[in-house]
């Protein structure tokens, strides 16, 4: 049988989370179809068709799916489900919103946020904020799975799958889109950035994020993140939060500045390839996971870091 993967996108571009979840979907061992549901999202379907190992792209292009509200999107996925024995989505806020609804409509138990495919029916997933790893086996007739994208490499390009249009499903008429406020930024997205620099409560203010973190982020082409303490204090916006209750990231380089390293923060970044910690407190738990630790005042260290980067041409 076949696996259906729900694409993550914004109607214009295909989000990198899709290519990462595709790696997990392919590991199930069956051919993979990608479902692109949106409005005016033909370009997204074309991008999805180019991913390696995709057999077919299903395009549900209708105003009903413009904002991927859970109620109509779940109806659509359920209407397609009979042709598939696994339904997979990246564990983005869209995937986490819609997939349990799909699972319940199909009367199956979902496997959330898998970090490893052990066998086509057996998966690893973190519990207790990543402080334990559970290996679970499902015997459900249909598998419904969300994928923690930070745990998987992105599948590359090289495919040329056919694109097939599918009809919109029934509109349950339960919900409507009212508005959105998206942070506008030219920076890479946190969840797909190669380098992330995050600030903690020690930054002391939103202005200091702009003053000392931003110039380094600019030099490195890095995404900016924050600890929960910094977000709760109002120094950084909600969607910058890295951690168990925020975003889970795994960049090549993660620079933690003035972050003590609470368990909840570590759960969100400990799979980064290289971790740098800059903190005044040499006892800070962040140093226990950092590859390179610098005990220093961030307000002197960061400007100096900028100068050193300039010396090597960054």
């Amino acid at each position, binding site marked *: 049988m076949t696996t259906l993967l729900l694409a993550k996108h914004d109607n214009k571009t295909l989000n990198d989370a899709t290519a990462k979840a595709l790696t997990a979907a392919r590991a199930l061992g069956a051919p993979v179809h990608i479902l692109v549901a949106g409005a005016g999202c033909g370009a997204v379907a074309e991008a999805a068709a180019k991913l390696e190992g995709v057999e077919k792209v299903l395009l549900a292009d209708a105003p009903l799916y413009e904002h991927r509200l859970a109620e109509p999107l779940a109806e659509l996925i359920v209407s397609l489900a009979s042709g598939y024995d696994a339904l997979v989505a990246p564990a983005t806020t869209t995937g986490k919103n819609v997939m349990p609804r799909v699972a319940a409509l199909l009367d199956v138990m979902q496997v959330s946020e898998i970090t490893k495919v052990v066998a086509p029916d057996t998966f690893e997933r973190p519990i207790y904020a990543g402080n334990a790893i559970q290996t679970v086996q499902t015997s459900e007739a249909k598998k419904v799975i969300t994928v923690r994208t930070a745990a998987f490499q992105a599948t590359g390009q090289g495919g040329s799958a056919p694109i097939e249009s599918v009809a919109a499903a029934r509109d349950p008429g339960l919900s409507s889109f009212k508005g959105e406020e998206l942070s506008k930024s030219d920076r890479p997205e946190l969840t797909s950035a190669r380098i992330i620099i995050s600030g903690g409560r020690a930054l002391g203010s939103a202005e200091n994020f702009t003053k000392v973190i931003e110039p380094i982020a600019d030099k490195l082409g890095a995404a900016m993140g924050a600890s929960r303490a910094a977000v709760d204090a109002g120094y950084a916006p909600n969607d910058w939060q890295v951690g168990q209750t925020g975003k889970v990231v795994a960049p090549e380089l993660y620079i933690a500045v003035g972050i003590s390293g609470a368990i909840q923060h570590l759960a969100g970044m400990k799979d980064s390839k290289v971790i740098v910690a800059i903190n005044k407190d040499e006892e800070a738990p962040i140093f226990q996971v950092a590859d390179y630790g610098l005990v*220093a005042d961030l307000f002197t260290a960061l400007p100096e870091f900028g100068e050193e980067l300039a010396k090597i041409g960054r």
Partner: protein
Amino acid sequence: MKILVPVKRVVDYNVKIRVKADGSGVELANVKMSMNPFDEIAVEEAIRLKEAGKASEIVVVSIGPQQAAETIRTGLAMGADRGILVKTDIATDPLGVAKVLKKIVEQEAPGLIIMGKQAIDDDANQTGQMLAALLGWSQGTFASKVVIGDGTVDVTREIDGGLQTVTLKLPAVVTTDLRLNEPRYASLPNIMKAKKKPIDETTPEALGVDVTPRLKVLKTTEPPARKAGVKVGSVAELVQKLKDEAGVL
């Protein structure tokens, strides 16, 4: 409007959990248990809606062992009106819980359900969405703002890249995110008062729901430890090491 708030008894969020050496799970004996923090936010939101005259009664429900009655009592001490304990010693999964809650909803007929977006033990993030699906209701997950309208509720949701606001037809299921509110502490008089508030008891069997978990947990292990690296003496050394040793600059 009646509000139903499902709550879960979990290991207190301040406890550093220990994985059992035999791989059979996480040590729960003699560990401090509390209400799931996201559920506390749900109780708080329900109380605020009642205080604002938007709700008439708040019913707290928990599915779990006898001790889950203490978790319900916490909600009653915060200000909820009464409780329902669905007693079971089975480690239920979200689908089973959603099915039990559906039965409770059929009995109680609430106009709104507010619950945590996920429990901090299994981190599944499923029950609210599943309950909405089983009831055929709308869902507003990861809420950071809830505004009751006329037969509708506007829910502002924390999504990747920002905030989204949706208008849901009532009845609806709302799941809470961290910044929806800051839960109050129960005052001593309210804790005393809560002891007199009623808690009804039932069981999944009495409700006709099979809560046998569908997923089989093969083992539970410690996450791979990350070894601490080196301390560098200066910013210059840091940049040099990142460039030459780690190769990430």
